């Protein structure tokens, strides 16, 4: 071989490399000997065995037959590039199926199979055989390899009984509440109703802002047979104000004399079901005097517009603030800086189940059964309005047909409760779709401005953010949004000089409350779209720019909090090969002059799990009955996200008891302790941690009773605990143990509250104990004639710490992305105009493109089994990634979200006119 050396630059697994090679040196040798990537095996050096198979520019080749000198500018992928910190689905599948024996052919098989699966995610046996035809295996007989490849992308859920004891975490058991959801047996809010229940109709304000007087209700009742009673604010026995954050509670259950938004409840009509169903609501005696109204923060802050609530000057409910360093100086001294403004719209939760439930007396306790996300908060708010001590109100959650934040606030609970208290009869309500949309909370519309600067090396040096959030007529979760946004508005990036202000401003619009992300999805649109412009000004690749600025372990946030277990960089790195492919495909699709233009975009998220700098404890009780059932009092309401299954998996492994022995006791405030609200991505982490502690405590009690060490294995057999440690075997007959006051032979109850601190005047402190991270890549096509967007593919990499149930994690990612698509492209709630599901558009099945999920698992030191929350994270990057892809495709920025076809088209036309 010649001694002459050539320098070749190419890319291996997304990283640029420069290699000094001799003219005929094989790629296999360069990879192994030059670059140390010994995952690629050499079996024959002649192209016969395929053990050295690698991908070069998307094609699978034998690396031993490729001269490295010809690879200038190529992209090479080896087995080392298949996993992203954790194994890929294909690699997991190989393990599960036993597809590797000695393992020497495995890298070549995996690379060939990965290339196949990218083009064809569900290949037939023949297609697998064709794709792997060039790789020889002497051990397996190939069958398990074929199975592993064919099933790599398939859901492999198993029954709880099949989950190995002690291995529930990380398995994907079929959700424990799944069967009754597919059989129709699940009882949602409208599915139970006492036979003698009264129906309740609500008189609502047709005006944005109005004074009203209620007329002769006695005459109204007399004229309507079957109508039993009318109730107004004057009938409310307690304090007529509720709210999820007690110091801000300001919303009357029934408005007294003045209505502050369209759809506000002003009176109740209770009657026999047929009479209520036949009632003409226009016959109700009420007279209105409309008042001037404000629908935007700008209108509400006009000096001549009155304050909607006493003491909230200028209609400002509250303000959140975080500051560190000197942002003005940083921006003034920046090498490049960008500024922008973005507005977002009201977004409706549009769960498919409208609010429903009923109240009834049980002795002197008022029992309310309804769909909810927060039973204890419902109890306390309802008790306050009705003037009852909390223990005389019992909330029994019925299944919630979706919640996404809006079913955290009470809706019908105090209304049916009032009717039952006053009449002594059960009272039931089922909201119509119109009631649900008119009267419950929305995502805050935001008007945001920001500037971000970077130095010549491409490092972000400073940022200033200001956001006004239209919080509507009452407080609800406005304070949470105002405080959470400034903590998160930097994104998961190092931002040494920073100031962010979030304001919640009252208007006469619908009440804005909690909706998956509490304002962070809106703020992330602002920050991530500016990052694209910053990268462009710097001449940097958009993904590389984000990777360079991503937070890593030990970095401090803008609140001064030192982080650990930070996975954002891993998420962004995991997108690299997809980014390169997508970029190349977009370039080639855009080579012509067609009306369809391709674009790709990326965005990140981070999100603190649990309340912002406030306590939010969860308590879990678990007990073993005399018959050997393990009863888990699981109060973390499962609104579809899977907490029933995930919390049980955690408790099973912590206790060492088999998952199949567990039975769930739901979030009934009469029998289950408070596990807090299903909100803020807190249940897997906070309640999961309480379940872990309770499981361990239960285990300890059993082991102590049996006088064995922690190495013992606890089994359950026919009403007995069977404890084994080495040769020792103890059988504990549960029926012979005297039950405690809780009714259990063994019982444990544990509480967990995240270790956070209050924030000081500059927002410095520890607002959250655990954060989760993620990044998404969107590929789309814009029709430049119509302004329409067609999504082609989304790749989502999320750091969940530990995927307690990988299938449920994927389900959250796919569902969150669907809502992110709606936020970006179609969802705009206009009060008075879109109060139904034909004028208000949410994604249908045709709107969600293929989604590839990459689970990144960087364990969190605090979370149970390393887990982090994810429910809200998964929605956050989607909308900004879509907007960035639109800008990449057609060069326009849409500054009012959603980016509807008309807005995109207007932006394209404006740009053409300006040229």
């Amino acid at each position, binding site marked *: 071989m010649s001694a002459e050396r050539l320098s070749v630059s190419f890319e291996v697994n997304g990283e640029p490399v420069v290699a000094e090679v001799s003219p005929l040196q094989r790629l296999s040798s360069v990879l192994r000997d030059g670059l140390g990537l010994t995952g690629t095996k050499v079996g024959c050096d002649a192209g016969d065995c395929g053990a050295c198979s690698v991908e070069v520019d998307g094609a699978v080749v034998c690396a031993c037959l490729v001269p490295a000198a010809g690879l200038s500018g190529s992209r090479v992928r080896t087995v080392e590039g298949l996993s992203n910190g954790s194994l890929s689905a294909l690699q997991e599948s190989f393990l599960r199926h036993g597809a590797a024996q000695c393992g020497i052919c495995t890298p070549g098989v995996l690379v060939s199979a990965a290339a196949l699966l990218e083009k064809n995610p569900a290949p037939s046996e023949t297609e697998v055989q064709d794709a792997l035809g060039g790789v020889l295996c002497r051990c397996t007989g190939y069958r398990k390899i074929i199975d592993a490849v064919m099933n790599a992308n398939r859901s492999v859920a198993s029954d709880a009984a099949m989950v190995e004891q002690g291995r529930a975490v990380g398995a994907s058991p079929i959700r424990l509440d799944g069967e009754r959801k597919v059989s129709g047996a699940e009882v949602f809010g409208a599915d139970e109703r006492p036979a003698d229940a009264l129906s309740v109709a609500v008189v609502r304000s047709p005006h944005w802002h109005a004074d009203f007087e209620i007329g002769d209700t006695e005459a109204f009742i007399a004229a309507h047979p079957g109508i039993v009673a009318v109730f107004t604010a004057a009938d409310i026995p307690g304090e007529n104000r509720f709210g999820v954050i007690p110091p801000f509670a300001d919303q009357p259950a029934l408005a007294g004399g003045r209505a502050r938004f369209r759809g506000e409840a002003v009176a109740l009509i209770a009657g026999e079901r047929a009479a209520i169903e036949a009632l003409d609501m226009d016959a109700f005696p009420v007279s209105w005097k409309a008042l001037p109204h404000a629908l935007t923060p700008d209108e509400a802050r006009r000096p001549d517009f009155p304050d909607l609530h006493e003491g909230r000057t200028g209609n400002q409910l509250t303000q959140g603030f975080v500051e560190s360093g000197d942002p003005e100086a940083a921006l003034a001294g920046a090498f490049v800086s960008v500024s922008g403004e973005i507005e977002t719209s009201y977004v409706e939760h549009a769960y498919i189940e409208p609010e429903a439930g009923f109240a009834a007396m049980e002795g002197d306790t008022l029992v309310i059964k309804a769909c909810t996300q927060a039973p204890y908060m419902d109890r306390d708010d309802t008790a306050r309005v009705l003037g009852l001590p909390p223990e005389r109100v019992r909330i029994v959650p019925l299944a919630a047909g979706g919640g996404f934040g809006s079913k955290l606030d009470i809706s019908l609970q105090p209304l049916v409760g009032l009717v039952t208290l006053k009449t002594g009869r059960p009272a039931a309500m089922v909201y*119509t779709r119109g009631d649900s949309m008119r009267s419950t909370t929305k995502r805050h519309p935001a008007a945001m401005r920001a500037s971000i600067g970077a130095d010549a090396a491409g490092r972000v040096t400073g940022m200033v953010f200001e956001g006004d959030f239209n919080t509507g007529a009452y407080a609800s979760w406005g304070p949470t949004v105002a405080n959470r946004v400034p903590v998160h508005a930097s994104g998961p990036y190092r931002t040494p000089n920073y100031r962010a202000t979030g304001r919640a401003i009252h208007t006469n619009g619908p009440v804005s409350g909690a909706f998956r992300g509490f304002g962070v999805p809106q703020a992330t649109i602002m920050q991530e779209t500016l990052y694209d412009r910053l990268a462009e000004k710097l001449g940097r690749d958009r993904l590389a720019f984000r990777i360079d600025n991503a937070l890593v372990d030990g970095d401090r946030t803008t609140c001064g909090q030192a982080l650990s277990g930070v996975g954002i960089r891993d998420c962004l790195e995991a997108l690299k090969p997809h980014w390169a492919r997508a970029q190349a495909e977009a370039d080639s699709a855009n080579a012509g002059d067609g009306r369809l233009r391709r674009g790709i975009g990326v965005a990140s998220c981070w999100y603190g799990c649990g309340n912002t700098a406030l306590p939010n404890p969860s308590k879990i009780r678990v007990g073993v009955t005399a018959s050997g059932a393990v009863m888990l009092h699981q109060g973390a309401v499962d609104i579809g996200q899977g907490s029933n299954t995930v919390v049980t998996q955690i408790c099973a492994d912590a206790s060492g008891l088999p998952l199949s022995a567990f039975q769930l006791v739901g979030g009934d405030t009469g029998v289950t302790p408070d596990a807090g609200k299903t909100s803020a991505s807190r249940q897997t982490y906070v309640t999961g941690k309480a379940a872990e502690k309770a499981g361990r405590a239960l285990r300890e009690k059993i082991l102590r009773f049996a006088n064995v060490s922690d190495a013992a294995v606890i089994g359950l057999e026919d009403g007995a605990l069977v404890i084994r440690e080495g040769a020792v075997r103890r059988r504990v007959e549960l029926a012979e143990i005297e039950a405690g006051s809780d009714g259990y032979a063994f019982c444990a109850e544990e509480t967990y509250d995240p270790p956070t601190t209050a924030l000081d005047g500059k927002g410095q402190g520890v607002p959250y104990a655990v954060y989760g991270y993620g990044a998404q890549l969107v590929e789309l096509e814009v029709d430049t004639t119509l302004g329409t967007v067609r999504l082609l593919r989304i790749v989502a990499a999320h750091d969940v710490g530990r995927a307690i149930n990988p299938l449920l994690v994927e389900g959250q990612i796919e569902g969150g992305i669907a809502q992110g698509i709606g936020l970006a492209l179609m969802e705009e709630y206009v009060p008075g105009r879109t109060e139904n599901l034909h004028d208000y558009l949410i994604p249908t099945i045709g709107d969600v493109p293929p989604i590839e999920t990459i689970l990144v698992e960087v364990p969190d030191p605090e979370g149970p089994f390393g887990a982090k929350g994810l429910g809200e994270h998964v929605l956050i990057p989607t909308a900004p990634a879509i907007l960035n892809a639109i800008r990449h495709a057609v060069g326009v920025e849409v500054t009012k979200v959603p980016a509807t076809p008309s807005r995109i088209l207007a932006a394209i036309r404006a740009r053409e006119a300006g040229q």
Partner: protein
Amino acid sequence: MTNVTMTVNGQKVSGSVEGRTLLVQFLRDTLGLTGTHVGCDTSQCGACTIHLDGKSVKACSLLAVQAEGAEITTIEGLAEGDVLHPVQAAFKEHHGLQCGFCTPGMIMAATDMIRRHPEGLDEGTVREELEGNICRCTGYHNIVKAIMAASEAVKTGSTKAA
């Protein structure tokens, strides 16, 4: 009030209804079959989908009197005793649900779809045919997977739809 008689999940039932009573109200309120859900009342969401004489229809868009003499199947009538229908089994095993509210309607629509396509279903067809059923939780992917698996199971006569 009018008397209506129909067969629901194999059982002859009758009741007295007003002319304006919707079929879904009759099923839920008179017969107590609350597995059929009401999400919108304006025929957008599909949560109330049932089978009328073997075809999937939205029960909020029919009057009870229109179902006089008809054969109705609701989600409660799909399983055979303790054995789930293959479509139900597939939704369960493929995580084709989260909150479960749209699920009965999805399953009834899917069952009819599979019956009309004995040759099997491709993803495009499933997506097109499910346009009348809205889900707010799942992002639809696992629903499509479940229906395709169920279609395959029905085609091959397998009792298990995994």
